[in-house]
C-alpha cells in the first residue's frame, strides 16, 4: 500500500504515470468530442444531459491529471493542454470524429462499459490515492452507464437507428479494444498491485460482459480480425480528426500560455 507519490520506486512511478495518462486522456478527449453535441443533440433535454456527462468526464480527467502531476511535477493544465497531438495517449477509439448520434452512442457504450471494468479493478489499487479517486469516479460513471444503456436499447429497437449503430460498432470495435492495450511497464504495476490485474484479463472480462448484451440486441461483437489486431500502437496512433479536435480544445490555452482566470 502506498499513500503518496514519494513512496513509489522510480520504475513504478513511471509506469503508473503512463497508466494515468492513458485514462486521463481517454476521459478528456471523449469529453471534448461529446461536448460538441451541445446545442444540437436530438432534444433539448438530451442536449443538457450529454453536455453534463461530457463535463463529468472532463472533471474526471482533471482529477487524474492532478494525480499525475504529483508523480511528474508537471502542472495539470500543462499536461492537459500543453502537449502536441502525438503526445496524447488516449485509446484509438477516441480518434474518431463525433459523426452522427448513433455513432456517438455506439462509441460511448463501448467506452463506458470498458471504463467500468477498468475502474472496478483500479478501485482495488494498492496506490491509495488512485483507489480513492476511482471509487468516487465509479459513483458518477454508474449514471453514465444507465444513460447509455437507455439510449442503446432505444436505438437498437428502431430499424434505421439499429443499422447505423451496427455500422458504427463495426468501425469502432478494433479501436475500442485499444482501451486495454498494454501499458509500458505494466508488469511492474501488476506486481506491485497498483494495477491489480493485467490489461489482458480486464479486456477478457469486458468482452464477456458486453458481447452477450450486444448479441441480444442484434448488434455486432468484435470480429476475429478485430480481436487479433495488434494493440501495440492502440494508444499512440493519431488521426487528422483528433488533430482537428486538439486544435479546438487547446485554442484558448494556446492564446496565452500560462494565463490564469
Amino acid at each position, binding site marked *: 500500500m502506498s499513500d503518496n507519490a514519494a513512496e513509489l520506486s522510480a520504475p513504478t512511478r513511471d509506469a503508473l504515470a503512463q497508466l494515468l495518462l492513458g485514462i486521463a486522456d481517454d476521459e478528456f478527449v471523449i469529453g471534448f468530442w461529446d461536448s460538441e453535441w451541445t446545442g444540437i443533440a436530438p*432534444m*433539448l*433535454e*438530451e442536449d*443538457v*444531459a450529454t453536455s*453534463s456527462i461530457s463535463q463529468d468526464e472532463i472533471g474526471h480527467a482533471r482529477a487524474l491529471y492532478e494525480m499525475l502531476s504529483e508523480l511528474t511535477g508537471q502542472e495539470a493544465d500543462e499536461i492537459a493542454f500543453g502537449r502536441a497531438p502525438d503526445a496524447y495517449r488516449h485509446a484509438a477509439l477516441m480518434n474518431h470524429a463525433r459523426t452522427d448520434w448513433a455513432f456517438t452512442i455506439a462509441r460511448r457504450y463501448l467506452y463506458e462499459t470498458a471504463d467500468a471494468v477498468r475502474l472496478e479493478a483500479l478501485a482495488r489499487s494498492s496506490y491509495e490515492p488512485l483507489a480513492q479517486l476511482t471509487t468516487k469516479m465509479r459513483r458518477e460513471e454508474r*449514471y453514465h452507464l*444507465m*444513460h447509455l444503456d*437507455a439510449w442503446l436499447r*432505444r436505438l437498437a429497437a428502431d430499424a434505421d437507428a439499429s443499422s447505423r449503430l451496427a455500422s458504427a460498432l463495426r468501425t469502432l470495435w478494433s479501436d475500442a479494444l485499444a482501451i486495454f492495450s498494454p501499458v509500458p511497464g505494466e508488469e511492474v504495476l501488476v506486481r506491485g498491485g497498483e494495477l491489480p490485474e493485467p490489461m489482458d484479463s480486464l479486456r477478457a472480462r469486458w468482452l464477456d460482459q458486453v458481447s452477450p448484451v450486444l448479441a441480444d440486441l442484434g448488434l455486432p461483437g468484435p470480429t476475429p480480425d478485430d480481436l487479433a489486431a495488434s494493440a501495440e500502437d492502440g494508444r499512440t496512433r493519431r488521426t487528422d480528426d483528433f488533430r482537428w479536435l486538439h486544435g479546438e480544445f487547446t485554442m484558448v490555452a494556446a492564446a496565452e500560455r500560462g494565463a490564469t482566470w
Partner: protein
Amino acid sequence: MSDGSPPHDRVWEVFRQEAEGDPMIHSGNVRAPDEELAMHYAREFYGRRQESNRLWVVARDAITELDDPDLLKPPFDRSFKRPGGYLIKHKLEAAKARAGTPAASEAHE
C-alpha cells in the same frame, strides 16, 4: 400532436426535495418519450449540482387536476370556514390553568 412535438414525447412534472424531511416542491418539468429518460433528464435538470435529496417524476397526464371555480371558489362568504375565525388562545390558557400547568404567556416570561 398539435404542438409539433414528436408523437411519443410526454411532459413530466418534477418535484424536488432539498433535504431529508423537507416537503416535495414542484420545480418544473421535462419532456421525454418515457419514464426512464424522464428520470435521467429530471436528474440533469434538477439534481446535477447536488441540490436535490430526492426527486419525484410524474407524468403530467397522470395528474388529476381540479380547477373548477364552482368547487374551489364558490361565490358565498366562506370566512367562517377559516380557522382564523375561532380564537382558541384564552380557552387554552384556562384549560392549562385547570390542569395545573403554567399558561403559555407565563411560561415565556
